[in-house]
């Protein structure tokens, strides 16, 4: 992966009637990068990918791949290949013919094509499958063959449209790691479309989070997870507690927020602009909130509550704590170290929640 911008999308829009499926999207993908487009269904991520592949025409804007403007270049002349959501394995062809499908124009000798297919089958760990038909393959195998069929073309960019969505959980997790390892070894730029935030975080170098046709934020997974800049991104990646409040005091780098739900919260200021009295939202990840049965006499970053519900998940528990007058619930996550989480989940008395100054993320107050 280099720092060079390999794929550039400039002010891309796609309108269907009055619906703006893609709304003025600009972004850059680097050579060899694993880049994900993440968002809820209907956010425009698939349309954006189909514009890059040439299946959808942009209403405005431009796509550049390796410095070349794609303009009205039809799909079959673009240096991109795609792995389709349902894999689109040709049902009338064998695995061998499927994988070699895109090589017809190269006019290679038959032995070389066979060798390339064999190598591709090795790569996807399906050696000896060349004479099978599509209906003899499982979902995971189809997915791998679709991948081999696209990669054998050595595209400048591989586009993947939710390719793991149809697989069961175990297989999906295994394929995530395999896909990531494969991408590293072939060094081809991947653009991966998914609605699964965990999947995007597992695999990507960078993620663009989309909603309503717009790209909200672009960044490395940890950056987006730990320091989201909008309420949507904070909410979409992982779980999040949001506390509405008003800025009480600004003291250098730290800000004190008065929240009707949990009292005073002290957070790092970050780069958000605000003044005393501004309406803000403080977001805190469940794993950054500690539950304890010991009374804490501190008037900042702590709140008394009562355990409302606890979901035991084996390695950890999600503990829901009713705070304040019981109207709001705080989600906390507790690792089950030596049974700690299963023990505390059964508590019926008062508990105290606390968190550190750097746990809170300050977001603008308007509910985006």
């Amino acid at each position: 992966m280099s720092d060079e911008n390999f794929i550039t999308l400039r002010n891309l829009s796609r309108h269907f009637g009055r619906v703006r499926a893609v709304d003025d999207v600009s972004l850059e993908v680097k050579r060899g990068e694993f880049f994900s487009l993440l968002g809820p269904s209907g956010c425009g991520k698939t349309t954006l990918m189909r514009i890059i592949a040439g299946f959808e025409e942009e209403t405005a804007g431009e796509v550049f791949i390796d410095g070349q403007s794609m303009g009205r270049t039809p799909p079959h002349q673009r240096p991109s290949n795609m792995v389709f959501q349902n894999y689109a394995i040709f049902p009338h062809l064998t695995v061998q013919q499927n994988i070699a499908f895109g090589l017809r124009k190269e006019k290679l000798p038959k032995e070389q094509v066979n060798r390339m297919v064999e190598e591709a089958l090795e790569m996807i760990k399906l050696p000896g499958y060349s004479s099978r038909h599509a209906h003899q393959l499982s979902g995971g195998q189809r997915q791998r063959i679709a991948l081999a069929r696209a990669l054998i073309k050595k595209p400048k960019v591989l586009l993947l449209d939710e390719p793991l969505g149809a697989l069961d959980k175990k297989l999906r997790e295994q394929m995530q790691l395999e896909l990531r390892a494969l991408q590293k070894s072939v060094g081809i730029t991947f653009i991966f479309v998914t609605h699964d935030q965990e999947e995007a975080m597992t695999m990507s170098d960078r993620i663009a989070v989309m909603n309503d046709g717009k790209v909200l934020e672009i960044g490395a997974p940890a950056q987006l997870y730990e320091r989201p800049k909008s309420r949507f991104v904070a909410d979409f990646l992982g779980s999040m507690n949001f506390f509405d409040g008003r800025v009480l005091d600004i003291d250098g780098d730290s800000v004190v927020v008065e929240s009707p739900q949990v009292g005073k919260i002290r957070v790092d200021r970050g780069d958000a602009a605000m003044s005393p009295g501004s309406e803000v939202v403080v977001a805190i990840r469940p794993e950054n909130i500690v539950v304890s049965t010991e009374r804490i006499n501190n008037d900042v970053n702590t709140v008394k509550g009562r355990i409302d519900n606890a979901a035991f998940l084996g390695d950890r528990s999600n503990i829901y704590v009713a705070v304040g007058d019981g109207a709001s619930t705080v989600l906390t996550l507790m690792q089950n170290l030596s049974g700690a989480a299963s023990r505390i989940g059964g508590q019926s008395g008062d508990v105290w929640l606390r968190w550190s100054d750097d746990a809170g993320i300050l977001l603008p107050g308007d509910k985006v």
Partner: protein
Amino acid sequence: MKSAARKVPFSALGVYTVIYLAFLYIPALFLPLFSFNDAIYIAFPIKGFTLKWYEEMAQNAAMLAALESSVKLGVVVSIVSTILGTMAAKAFTRYSIPYSRSLQVFIALPLVFPLIILGVALLVVFSQINLPLSMFTIGVSHVVICMPFSMLVMISRLEGFDKGLEEAAQDLGETPWMTFWRVTFPIALPGIVASLLLCFTISFDEFLLAFFLSGDEPTLPVYIWSQLRFPTKLPNVLALGSCILLLSVVIVVLAEWFRRIGVSPSVEETEKQ
């Protein structure tokens, strides 16, 4: 106990089935039976075995000419109808066409027209534009009635067709035209074969339109009708009918066999290009 009940050899439904099948097939079996009968009149008792009607048939130039006309007509009509029907079906299944449902019904409407009305109407049209009656005019009328069948067959085949397959082929570097030949056509092939056979059969035994619109060359049904006036020619017709019957069975068996082995052989050929 249940399976014992099912094995009762004699049931009302069984009797019905036997009668039904007999009603269907006995008339058809009379054809070959009397075609070997050594008598001009079609009546029991059977007089004796002969092959002379088949020999006469083979020498009956007018009948063979009519047969040839019908076969040629059927081949051309089935190909033209299937091309038009496939194109219409592709349009209806691929693109969102306004009033798609109504248009489909509109195209299929000739299916329910009484053929005699259609025949008269076409006769009026052809004479108005001074088009002499010929095999061509019969062909046009047959395409009118075959195309809807072809379209319906192809729509049902193409409806389950994943559009992603065509996109995948284009994504892998094929032009829309080669995508059609390497993906759409082989997958649609069983439907195309079914459509060709269906259209051929319809055209081959269609009488009314051919009767109204034929010039000096009759099709086989028209020729057979004209021969019914001459009892001595009837055994020839029986011999020919038996041959056609046999051929139909062979075609149906072939079509079914072809459908079952799938489409891989022809695909191999496109692969080699």
